[in-house]
């Protein structure tokens, strides 16, 4: 739908044309002292192929929705916004495109990055090129350890293990009596770290909880019949998974086919990323399901989120997943950072000034308030809950909805040791 290279070049063309058409507005905005008249160029790097392509598309849609609104309202300090797209793929190629955006296209800021493997390449490059980089989903963690405790130009996503921590909290709260657990997670850092973290937090509540089976199929596997047979054999009280792509749907369907969750509870920490494919026919009620950092159907959502969900549904025929808000927040916070730094400097701020201004800044994002912590880590809230069929859709939603702020479920600084923090912070009351 949204992925052809040609279409995407066309998109860039349109963005360019938009900037030209927007010329009169730019002229009128020249009145603002010290602000250049040409458009602000924002480099956007969504994943376009492979299992994470839908995630990339969602992030891009969030950014595009933002750009349209900002341009309608006159741009950033009167400068129109122009989006320049380059694809995120493997770390090496993405790094080259990142350099191209920085050195050749000379963009003002680059947003994007979903894979942490890519983030580990982009972080140091951003510092070296002195290029502002605001990540969507990528961190610069190696395992659970931070590789860049105090960067200047890089702004990273929420820690990778946050959802697993939230899932464990909800397990302890809602699924009492769980003693034996099995995990099925993708065979790469995120999968392994989520599983380890989930167990560590759960043990703070249920010290005698123990793992009876660990499965690590690689990302992209489309048949879990054999894995499910192994789970049936191990008979755990609960199955935990951090699957986030199409494999969530496949696992759920193949589990339903053998009635797995009739006798077993489950915690899908991240499955809400593909929420509208989790049809009621094969997704039972009573499972823990995490929607990451935006839940499209949240009753307490802001007017902004409600408008976004409505327009997204009208345009794309589906309900937005969380990545939209990672995208939206990065560009909205950039705008706020520029405006804040402009007030202080009296002219269009340098990248260093914007970076400084971003530290600790808080903006109204789609899912509510979001901010950049002083050490350049994104702060937001996570939405997890118990699956229910009581809704107007043909897929499951959650009720009750637990809103878990990162101030509660993420270690407080980049230099904090994760396990030490878990063992000293949990169990939380309530």
């Amino acid at each position, binding site marked *: *739908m*949204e*992925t*052809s290279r040609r279409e995407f070049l066309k998109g860039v063309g349109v963005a360019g044309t938009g900037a030209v058409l927007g010329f009169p507005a730019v002229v009128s905005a020249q009145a603002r002292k010290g602000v250049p008249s040409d458009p602000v160029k924002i480099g956007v790097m969504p994943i*376009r*192929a*492979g*299992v994470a*392509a*839908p995630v*990339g*598309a969602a992030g891009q849609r969030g950014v595009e929705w933002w750009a349209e609104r900002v341009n309608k309202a006159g741009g950033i300090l009167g400068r129109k916004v122009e989006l320049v797209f380059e694809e995120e793929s493997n770390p090496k190629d993405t790094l080259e495109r990142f350099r191209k955006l920085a050195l050749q296209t000379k963009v003002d800021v680059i947003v994007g990055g979903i894979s942490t493997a890519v983030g580990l390449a982009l972080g140091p490059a951003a510092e070296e090129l002195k290029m502002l980089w605001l990540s969507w989903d990528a961190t610069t963690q190696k395992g659970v350890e931070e590789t860049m405790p105090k960067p200047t130009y890089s702004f990273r996503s929420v820690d990778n293990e946050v959802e697993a921590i939230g899932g464990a909290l909800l397990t302890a709260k809602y699924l009492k009596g769980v003693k034996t657990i099995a995990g099925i997670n993708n065979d790469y850092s995120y999968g392994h770290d989520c599983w380890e973290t989930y167990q560590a937090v759960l043990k703070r509540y249920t010290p005698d909880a123990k793992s009876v*089976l*660990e*499965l*690590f*199929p*690689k990302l*992209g*596997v*489309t*048949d879990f*019949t*054999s*894995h*499910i*047979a*192994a789970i*049936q*054999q191990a008979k755990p009280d609960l199955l935990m998974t951090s699957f986030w*792509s*199409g494999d969530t*749907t*496949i696992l759920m*369907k*193949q589990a*339903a*086919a*053998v*009635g797995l969750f009739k006798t077993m509870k489950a915690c899908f920490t991240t499955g809400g990323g*593909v929420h509208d*494919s989790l*049809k009621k*026919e*094969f997704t039972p009620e009573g499972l823990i399901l995490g929607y990451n950092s935006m839940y499209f159907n949240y009753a307490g959502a802001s007017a902004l989120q409600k408008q976004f969900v409505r327009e997204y549904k009208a345009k794309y025929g589906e309900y937005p997943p969380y990545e939209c808000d990672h995208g939206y927040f990065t560009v909205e916070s950039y705008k706020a950072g520029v405006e804040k730094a402009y007030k202080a400097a009296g002219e269009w701020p340098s990248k260093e000034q914007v970076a400084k201004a971003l530290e600790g800044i808080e903006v109204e994002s789609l899912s509510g308030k979001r901010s950049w912590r002083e050490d350049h880590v994104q702060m937001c809230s996570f939405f997890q809950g118990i699956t229910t069929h009581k809704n107007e859709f043909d897929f499951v939603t959650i009720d009750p909805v637990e809103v878990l702020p990162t101030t509660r479920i993420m270690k407080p600084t980049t230099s904090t040791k994760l396990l030490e923090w878990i063992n000293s912070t949990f169990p939380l009351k309530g």
Partner: protein
Amino acid sequence: MTANLINILLGGVFHAAILFLVAAGLQVVFGVQRIFNLACGSFYALGAYVGASAVNAFTGAGGPPALFIVPLALAGLLVGVVGVVVERGLLAFVYDRDETFQLLLTFALVLMLEDIVRLTWGTAPYSTSALYLAYGQVNLLGATVPVYNLIVIGASLAIALGIGWLLTRTVFGRIIRAAADNREMAEALGVDMRRVYAKVFTLGTALGTLGGALVIPATAAMSEMGIELIVEAFAVVVIGGLGSMRGAFVGALVVGVFRAVAIAVYPELEMLMIYLVVIAVLVLRPRGLFGRVAV
């Protein structure tokens, strides 16, 4: 205990059933045309997408869910027609060239087909919703088994028998075997090799697309699903022996069941197990269990 054993074995056999169809497509093409068709995984993905579309259109038009297997199998077979187009339009030009060209061309097909899939169906996983459960489950000695899995296993077995019959009991089969044995001689005896090649390649393609279509209700289509499978299909071919149908059958069973047992007994070995078998076969029987050609 028995229930667990049945679950594990049937899980493995189900996986093997799909693998067999793709590997059989690979084998029949290699056996006759000496082309190692890397695109067989892409045909599998294409079959999955087209099959899912056909089924969704069928149920969307009010077709009874219980009959979904009819449009599914038909679509899977019909999309095999791409084989003629690919063979006449592309492969026909490289038969006289070095094998490297042929390999490169089929690899180019992999990339092109993946993009075509993305352009047509988008990047999000595409599925037939809950039709997988339409046939319900049966209880086999305490194990709950989805009936659809049994249908797929049965269909794959029937196709294996059908191919066996085709190759050994029909004129076309004799021609195929003759062409595989000695192309020049077959041509000298009046066999029109162009037609044989087109037919064989279409047969190979249709096996792959049918495999993709059959698996789709149980899973969800993703544009890169072909790449995932081709790796395992390679293992099947190496174990069974390049160019051998019997090899594809036994190889698929070995890969499917060994993988299932590994997952149940020692999950860390999930992928490694298959490669260990491949290595063992390469060391002990370099031509594969049923291979006649040196690999």
